[in-house]
């Protein structure tokens, strides 16, 4: 009796709090987009700061909050449905929200890593020397994917398990690698790669420009938000695409005006203009909606995603409950589905990029 009463008191308090929060919400539909530091995502910092995002949100009669996260927490927040849109790679879009039963739509294909991610080695080691050596990386991320692809492309696939992987946090991987001469190799991303490469005797053995289009950087929205009956979710995606491509135009120019914009974007990750430009040089940005659209509609995208999907499944990243590869399916703009048609969890939705390309936003 006492127990039941105390439970109901707790529940009452919880509903009370949520009522309060709901009561405070403004009449305008409000959305949150989360981003984390990465060359292809830091533009969100500028979108928020410069007022471009507010301008587009106002145009569609909604409110958009832009919130900065660390990468892993941003994924957690998206999966927990605390935020409506988030920046993430194609791999994480598949193995975090999609594999957790949160249907996800990629509405902006921002760029692909074109050298940002790299496999670095000491003392001129070759690919064939790696088995048996100690290698630092953040396991179960695109870093491990890159390593997997590097060894596969060099015909060493069956020896992958002999590389001694040390799971190392990205915040410490630079000092850990530089100060421990027993670590023969490391896989990480820029700007960490640039910091490590400054050390004498360290060279880059493989980088993501050798697997172009496989590590994609997306802006994803929960499909359920896009499908809201009042259409506010679609307005949200339109505003995101509108703001994004307005900034892309400004970023892709040349001269002092562009440098000013790039410097302001770089300040979002405490990067200097030079460092940010260096990162952009190895990021294949889709500056125009037409180029992103073309990639999103291509057959190439399906081939690349098939590789990523297989990797995620082989490494158990799709979760213990996913018994078959086809249980987490991906839908493409032309209507084809990779996997079971009734289990589509990730969707490439190019309609917003298309509207941007046609100037209909």
């Amino acid at each position, binding site marked *: 009796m006492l*127990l039941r009463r*105390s*439970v109901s008191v*707790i*529940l009452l308090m919880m509903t009370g709090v949520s009522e309060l929060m709901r009561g405070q919400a403004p009449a305008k539909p409000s959305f949150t987009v989360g981003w984390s530091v990465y060359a292809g995502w830091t533009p969100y910092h500028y979108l928020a700061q410069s007022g471009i995002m507010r301008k587009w949100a106002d145009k569609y009669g909604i409110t958009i909050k832009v919130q900065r996260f660390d990468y*892993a927490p941003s994924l*957690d927040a998206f*999966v*927990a449905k605390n935020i409506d849109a988030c920046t993430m790679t194609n791999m994480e879009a598949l*193995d*975090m929200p999609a*594999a*957790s*039963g*949160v249907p996800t739509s990629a509405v902006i294909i921002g760029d692909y890593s074109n050298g940002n991610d790299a496999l670095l080695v000491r003392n001129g080691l070759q690919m064939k020397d790696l088995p048996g050596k100690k290698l*630092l990386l953040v*396991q*179960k*991320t695109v870093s491990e994917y890159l390593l997997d692809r590097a060894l596969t492309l060099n015909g060493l696939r069956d020896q992958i*398990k002999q590389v*001694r*992987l*040390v*799971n*190392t*946090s990205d915040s*410490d991987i630079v*000092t*850990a690698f530089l*100060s*421990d001469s*027993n*670590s023969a190799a490391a896989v990480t991303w820029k700007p960490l790669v640039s910091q490590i490469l400054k050390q004498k005797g360290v060279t880059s053995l493989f980088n993501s420009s050798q697997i172009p289009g496989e590590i994609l950087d997306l802006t994803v929205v929960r499909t359920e938000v896009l499908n809201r009956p009042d259409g506010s979710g679609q307005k949200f995606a339109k505003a995101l695409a509108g703001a994004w491509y307005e900034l892309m135009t400004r970023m892709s120019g040349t001269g002092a005006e562009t440098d000013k914009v790039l410097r302001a974007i770089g300040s979002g990750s405490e990067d200097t203009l030079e460092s940010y430009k260096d990162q952009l040089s190895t990021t294949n940005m889709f500056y125009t909606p037409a180029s992103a659209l073309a990639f999103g509609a291509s057959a190439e995208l399906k081939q690349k995603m098939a590789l990523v999907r297989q990797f995620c499944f082989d*490494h*158990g*990243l*799709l*979760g*213990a*409950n996913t018994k078959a590869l086809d249980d987490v399916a991906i839908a493409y703009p032309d209507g084809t589905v990779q996997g079971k048609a009734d289990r589509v969890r990730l969707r490439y939705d190019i309609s917003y990029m298309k509207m941007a390309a046609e100037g209909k936003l």
Partner: protein
Amino acid sequence: MTGAGFQLIYAKPGRGVTWALSWLLFAAGVIGYLAISTARHRDNPEERVTPTVWQMVDGMSHAIMSPAEDSEPLPDGATWSQRLTHSMLWTDTKATGLRFIYSMALLLPAVMLGLHMGVFPYVGAFFLRFVLFFDKIVALSLLPILFIAFGIDELSKVMLIVIGVAPTVILDTFNLARGVPNEQVVKAFTLGAGDFDVTYRVVLKQIWPRVLNSIRLNLKAVMLFLFAGEMIASTDGLAYRIALLRRHMGMDVIIPYVLWVALLLFLVDFGMRVLNQKLHPWFEA
């Protein structure tokens, strides 16, 4: 005194009520979790943030009975004991446990240092200010230096714990040693004791149970540093596994793992209390 109020201070619950009250928050926690988990699973059958009890049982039995995905697969027809000793849970627990034991062992010199600092004024004068300063250093922010000095293998993890916890233990022991009444020291000297008789047989002997207690209260700090170390750079261990599982929301194993760590810590704590009581029956904690 006018008898205002109920004097609840004197209202003692009976045995049964005490028992029931002490489990109430556990029950509330479990019921709250189940309610949230059920609701979330109704909303999304593939939900992974709040796994059901069955999913956790499933995940854990897998962890107990089969090796981790990244280690050697078991030979066919492995016996039960082979399965257990090669299982993910066992290998992880063994790795973390070894680090834990090493760091506890390295706390013994810390006790000795604190003792000598408390008994010998010259030793105290030499070390005290530095240890006081060192105690306030946030060890985690020194990681880059630790990596350079101790590499990124076992030693740096153990040293992280030692550097994080040892100053507290040193200062605790120092204060306890200083707290021994001077009359006892004088008395021991008049009875013909030497410096080291006084140090080990008079001072250490009577502060030892309190020192053990102080180490026991620092167990949580030891574990926190150990987890931090394993999450930063590691190839095995309980926190390593949790860090990996977090990448793909493997909460069905993470939650049981956290409970397992809590149980282990509780057992160590309990063991130390019992040991203390057995060794020092005259001491009341």
